[in-house]
């Protein structure tokens, strides 16, 4: 790929970096995603996925580097970025004392959508997400998965071009997970949306995504189509490839702590300390 062209690249990051004090949450991230594609950022907990999407949505500002989202710069054109992006946060941020309908109306107003449009979209979204019977209950009584569904509606209500989903299926039951997965593939196929998913669930990534990036401790380890990643490390499937790339400990090591005697453990610690030096 040569020059950056605004026409066909939805998201491109340039040396995107974020520090929280001493912690380097995201380190020099460079990715490019075309319009209409689905991209998955895979990684263990604390890898920096949430931090990345928050930066791409102009919610927090990067320590260094920048990114173009939909052709807009996330630092200097943050308002435009926010207008064209939808964002499903990792844990639902909701007003507990509102009903789903009222909350979605509120979100619509935050994006300055016309009133009639808000109302018709709410009806449609509530129907898709099977929340129809509960639309007048206060959100405080909802389960986590139901709250997540409401947040998904909120992410979609402004009909964004680019959609960021942070752990979209982590709290959902199998049926709802299926529904969300179908929705994602429909959105890319029929509505030509660009979708950016953060997840630690390998099957979600493998099934839905055109391209996958694996991130660990803030650094992007590999990137490419699922097939390419599997082949590159001679693995059988994505899970195997992921474990190989992350260098996860062998099964025998996992239970070693039970046999270890206190003296031995001390010795091991010493050895480790020496190795570091």
């Amino acid at each position: 790929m040569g020059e950056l062209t605004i026409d066909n690249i939805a998201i491109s990051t340039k040396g995107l970096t974020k520090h929280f004090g001493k912690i380097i949450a995201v380190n020099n991230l460079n990715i490019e995603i075309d319009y209409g594609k689905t991209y998955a950022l895979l990684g263990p907990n604390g890898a920096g996925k949430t931090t990345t999407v928050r930066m791409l949505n102009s919610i927090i500002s990067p320590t260094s580097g920048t990114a173009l989202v939909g052709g807009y710069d996330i630092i200097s054109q943050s308002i435009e970025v926010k207008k064209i992006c939808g964002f499903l946060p990792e844990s639902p941020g909701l007003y507990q004392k509102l009903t789903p309908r009222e909350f979605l109306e509120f979100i619509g107003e935050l994006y300055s959508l016309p009133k009639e449009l808000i109302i018709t979209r709410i009806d449609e979204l509530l129907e898709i997400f099977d929340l129809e019977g509960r639309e007048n209950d206060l959100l405080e009584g909802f389960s986590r998965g139901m709250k997540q569904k409401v947040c998904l509606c909120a992410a979609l209500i402004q009909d964004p071009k680019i959609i960021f989903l942070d752990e979209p299926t982590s709290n959902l039951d199998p049926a709802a997970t299926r529904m969300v997965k179908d929705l994602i593939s429909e959105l890319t196929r029929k509505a030509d949306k660009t979708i950016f998913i953060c997840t630690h669930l390998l099957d979600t990534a493998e099934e839905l995504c055109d391209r996958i990036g694996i991130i660990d401790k803030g650094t992007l380890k590999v990137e490419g189509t699922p097939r390419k990643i599997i082949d590159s490390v001679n693995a059988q499937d994505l899970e195997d490839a992921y474990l190989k790339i992350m260098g996860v400990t062998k099964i025998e090591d996992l239970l070693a702590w039970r046999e270890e005697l206190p003296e031995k453990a001390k010795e091991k610690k010493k050895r480790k300390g020496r190795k570091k030096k």
Partner: protein
Amino acid sequence: MAAWKAIAKTELRRKTSSFRNHRFLLFLVIYTILCVWAFLFAPLIFDLFMPNLVTYFPGNVFSVVGYLIEFILMMLFLMIIMYPMQNIYRKTEVGYKEMVLASPARPGDIFFGEFIGKVPIYLIFILALAPVITGLINPIINLNIIQYIIIYLCVTGHVIFAALLGSILVSWLEHKIARSEKARDLGKVLLFLLAIAMVAILYTFTYLFNYIKSNPHIKNYLSFYPSLWFSNIILYTIQPVLISSYILNIWVSIFLAVFIPFTILYITFKKAYAFFSLETSIEKTSTIIEKENKFYRFIRKITRIKWEGLIITQLKEFFRKRENIMKIVYTIGLTLFEGVIFAFLGGDYPNLDTQDISLYMMMSVMIAGMLFSLFLGNFIFVGSKELIWVYKKSPRNIKVLIFSYLRMIVIIIFFIGIGLTIFFSLFFQYDIFTAIFFFLFLIIYSLISVSQAIGLQCINPAFEEKGGDMQLTIGILVIINMATIFGSLFLGFQLLGNFNPPPELIKVFFSLPLIIFGTLFAIPLLFFGLKKLNKIE
């Protein structure tokens, strides 16, 4: 290791988590500073100004010092009871408790352990407070070593007992909260009742000082208040006559001060299961809202389209929380109560002169403003931190949260203001101009006061699950309000003395300083608060 010891250790660790790498150093530094204060600075300072006090109150300096000691202990007792209450806002604490409960530790161990874990922190209170008491007394009579020991023992008992009561209260509330949402409201209201009691004591002391001095028997109504048992012992050691007017003589005081705390400690240790058994199922209420209330439709009509939905959202979230209705009731009730009390205490009601009316007007507005800031402004973020991201993600950014909240408060204050104005107009027989003046003054000052609270919250936000310390913000707000009121009273009387204005202008001379001082605090707080909030991560 006994279970309670492990729990005590964890408790201390959790309390000092922000200094986790230098815990030992932290306590060393704090205790060293406090010892220097106790044995060097405090005696020096009090030796400096006590002789003045002695000449200022010739003859009865003992009773003045006596009142001061009683008053300090009363305030402190409430403050220490309130100290553990900040936990009530944190949801995560309940999760932690669940884990401890899953272990074989018994409820008594848990309670005792958590309490002991806090003692090093309460030691700070003791070392800070006792020198003040001895410093007040020492310049008048030279304390001997026995008297020193008794005073330190009393202060220690007082602080630890208050801490014990606070811990019991909090554990009980957390227990209730775990079982019902309604109790959560109760806890929040309770915290405010205590804060208000504190302010009430402060006011009572400042304004009723002479009255109490000439009618010492009214203190007998407070004999049940534990800090008096301890202060009685201290007063008796310095001058037995000081407590001669009480129902409680020295023996009863000692008995209560020793017997009650130990009995309570024993009972709670034995009965801890009554407030530590966490029910697994947190009761979930399901409320259905079919149709929008008339009130909201009315508000929709009077607000501009651009803000309508946001303000309605804030209003719904606010009014559907039951504790908020309580807060408004308290605000109105306390403001009315205070206005009436001042009018009667000042003597001449209903034949008040313009200066009295202006003074009482200012005091009422000041109280209303402070309550609004404590009750409304302080709660801007008590919700999930995730909501901050919702606002930050939207193109309208986080500032619309602040401004829609402020607009909601304008609406609430407007309606409450009408009610208060009608009452005070009738009570003080305001003419129409005075009534309008009062209404505007009330609204403007309340907004200024609320802005202070919001600014402080932006700087040190308190979210449901984590974040700043609500207790600290309340403390700072009370201090700001005290500074404002005393500054304004001083300035008001100065202006009055120097300019001798016509009667119609007296109220301006009292209200203007309040607004000026309030704004002086509000603008920087709001300015830096918004800046800080923009950078929240």
